[in-house]
């Protein structure tokens, strides 16, 4: 099959090229959340493992996090004893990255994007630090605390949602003010 005919094939367009609808995404996320709880015993989370990875690195250089409040829970202690490939959340994070790469390659949309200006770099670094810190003091990110919280019928997920919207509102005002010039 010629490449030009592949890219105009309607099944290729629907499955690989065009973005799926929000409803399709929502249904798939729900199915995978159920599969995640069923197979690993805990809900989907993304940023939790980042702290664990940090602790592993720190321990590899001779540090000790034994007395850190963050790792004082049973789950926290258990995560320290695992390795990357025996920690379901770590492997899943790797899967998210590999899956995203595969999806963009299948759609032939892979591209190294140019950095527009230093301001973009600064915003990304500051934003990343704030999000990482915020996700840890809130005991979860928009996945672990919001999505998994709500899907476990916890009120905390809704409280998180309320304040996340407030944060997003302020954030988008700042974005329009500093990045639209």
């Amino acid at each position, binding site marked *: 099959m010629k490449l030009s005919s592949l890219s105009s094939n309607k099944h290729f367009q629907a499955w690989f090229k065009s*973005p799926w609808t929000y409803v399709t995404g929502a249904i798939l996320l729900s199915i995978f959340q159920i599969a995640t709880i069923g197979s690993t015993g805990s809900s989907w989370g993304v940023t939790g493992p980042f702290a664990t990875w940090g602790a592993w690195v720190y321990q590899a250089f001779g540090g000790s996090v034994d007395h850190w409040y963050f790792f004082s829970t049973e789950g926290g202690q258990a995560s320290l004893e695992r390795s990357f490939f025996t920690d379901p959340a770590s492997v899943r994070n790797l899967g998210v990255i590999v899956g995203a790469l595969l999806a963009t390659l299948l759609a*032939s949309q892979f*591209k190294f994007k*140019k950095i527009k200006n230093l301001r973009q770099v600064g915003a990304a670094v500051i934003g990343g630090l704030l999000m990482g810190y915020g996700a840890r003091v809130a005991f979860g990110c928009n996945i672990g605390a919001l999505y998994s919280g709500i899907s476990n019928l916890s009120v905390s997920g809704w409280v998180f949602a309320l304040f996340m919207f407030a944060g997003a509102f302020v954030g988008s005002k700042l974005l*329009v003010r500093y990045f*639209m010039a």
Partner: protein
Amino acid sequence: MAEYELDCLGEACPVPLVKTENKLKELEVGDTLIVIIDHSCALKNVPEWARKNNHEVEVEEIGDGEYEIFIDKTA
């Protein structure tokens, strides 16, 4: 019937959409705005917003992950 270009390469959501909204306000009815993007979310929300506002929209893939969104201002 003038044609304008809006370079949004390297910009992530919601920058391309907000820039498009602002730029389109400056245009006359009948003018065309070409928004150049390389962010897949913008490929969804920019045409969606423009169609919702009754503008004529056409999307063209100009390279791997690079698109031109043609918006004819109709109202």
